């Protein structure tokens, strides 16, 4: 089953073309890594998938096949965008009617999250005055509401948060602080992974999650990604500059992104070749 299907995707930022016909299919249980030089469009790809305002899709499609039931809307009224369901026959229909192909680009960012998409930020944003606990409980319960699931109580949520914080070796006390405020670069990335653990997405796009991490933190974060996401029904798109993280999170496929397109695809050995020879030599 394909979790994410990107077909001929082109996108502009402030009128400037960044993605130029990118195609990529990611199957359930797979971990894909995207590597590429600065300015290739790696972060743009993650923002387009997340639906960040200002990142305009000019052509192509992105289809997400989510194992999660999705009812649409935020429960607070009529949703401005409704999921559009693919007309093509479903590759792996489930009896519950779950696992439908959904046009990701037609959804608002919070609806994509409720569908099971998680976007790990290269630069996690600070939100003064809002604690992680408050923010994450709100996040999880908003997602659950959109999926027609009952909200978690305060106690249930704290138990879950404690468990995931321990997995990533992040002091639970830190989750009582305002979101990312005063966190070091490494702590922010660990906190991103704690959030991923709590939200338990079906598909994660992790944008340079390894940047700013020391060697020990890199191992913890790598182990965390494996523990949370290496499941037969989940998939990961890892965006990275370096091969290091891939020692801990072994990818099934490595893609080279250059000038807005995937120019080469291979196995984990491709990352090693890149590290040794550089983008220009390998992608040429």
């Amino acid at each position, binding site marked *: 089953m394909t979790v994410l299907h990107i077909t001929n995707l082109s996108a502009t930022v402030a009128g400037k073309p960044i993605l130029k016909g990118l195609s990529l299919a990611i199957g359930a249980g797979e971990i894909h890594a995207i590597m590429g030089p600065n300015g290739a469009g790696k972060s743009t790809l993650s923002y387009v998938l997340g*639906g960040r305002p200002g990142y305009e899709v000019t052509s192509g499609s992105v289809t997400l096949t989510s194992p999660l039931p999705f009812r649409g809307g935020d429960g607070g009224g009529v949703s401005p965008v409704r999921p559009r369901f693919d007309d093509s026959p479903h590759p792996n229909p489930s009896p519950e009617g779950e696992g439908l192909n959904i046009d990701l680009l037609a959804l608002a960012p919070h609806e994509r999250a409720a569908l099971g998409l998680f976007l790990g930020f290269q630069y996690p944003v600070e*939100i003064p*005055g809002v604690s992680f606990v408050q*923010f994450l409980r709100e996040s999880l319960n*908003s997602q659950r509401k959109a999926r027609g699931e009952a909200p978690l109580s305060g106690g249930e949520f704290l138990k879950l948060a404690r468990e995931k914080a321990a997995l990533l070796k992040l002091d639970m006390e830190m989750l009582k602080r*305002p979101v990312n405020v005063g966190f070091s670069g490494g702590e922010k990335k660990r906190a991103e992974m704690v959030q991923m653990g709590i939200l338990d997405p079906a598909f994660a796009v992790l944008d340079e999650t390894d940047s700013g991490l020391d060697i020990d933190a890199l191992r913890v974060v790598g182990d965390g990604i494996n523990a949370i996401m290496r499941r037969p029904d989940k998939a990961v798109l890892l965006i990275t500059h370096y091969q290091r993280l891939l020692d801990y999170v072994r990818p099934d496929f490595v893609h080279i992104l250059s000038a807005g397109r995937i120019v080469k695809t291979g196995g984990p050995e491709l990352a090693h070749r890149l590290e040794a020879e550089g983008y220009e030599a390998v992608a040429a």
Partner: protein
Amino acid sequence: MTALALPTRRDEDFRYADLEALAPLWPVLVETIEVAAGGSGALTIVASADAPVRSLSITLGAGAAFDLRILNAGLAYGRIALSVRLDDGADFTLGAAQLGSASETLEIVTTVTHGAPNATSRQTVRSVLAGHATGTYLGKVAVARGADGTDAAQSVRAMLLDRTATANAKPELEIFADDVKCAHGCAVGELDAQALFYMASRGVPPAQAKRLMLQAFIAEAFVGAADEDALTAAALERLETLV
């Protein structure tokens, strides 16, 4: 108070006032509060239609302390004017939030006079303005000759939810003493788009994300108040109608 003439726009303190709404309420009775030396007091004002325009004169004796909290919201016109005079070592705290929408005009106008040495004053004003609302803070801190050791701070911030809303902020210092510490900060801005997208990417719908951020923003005005929870709840209720 004698029957003063209705102010005009030329009166600095009324430059942004809704004079039409003010006219039938004029002249405004000045309420006096005096705290004797060494004493302390606190007051919470939640603006109401019964008394939309208020004027307070507060005098604090030596070493006295007063904590004033204001929620100015939900009125077509709401104005609170303060004249505060501090004696030796007195301490004054103002924490105020203004929440406006539609074409509401909300204003807080203060004059805090440090009349003797070593007095402290802290003013925190947070405004959230939507639609065509106008929120104004005019705040003057006057430090008298010889009032050394004065410590005065003004923190004034406004958040505009729509480009059509207006915030006026004028923190002002008038200092006639040498050894003083007077800080003022003033900022008018919009909700951080990056933070809104970050929250959306985790599943929080836009309106809820805005409420969370604004709640935190307003909370700064009510921190440490005796009835912090009640004030925050009242402000939150009003916020629900703004986003």
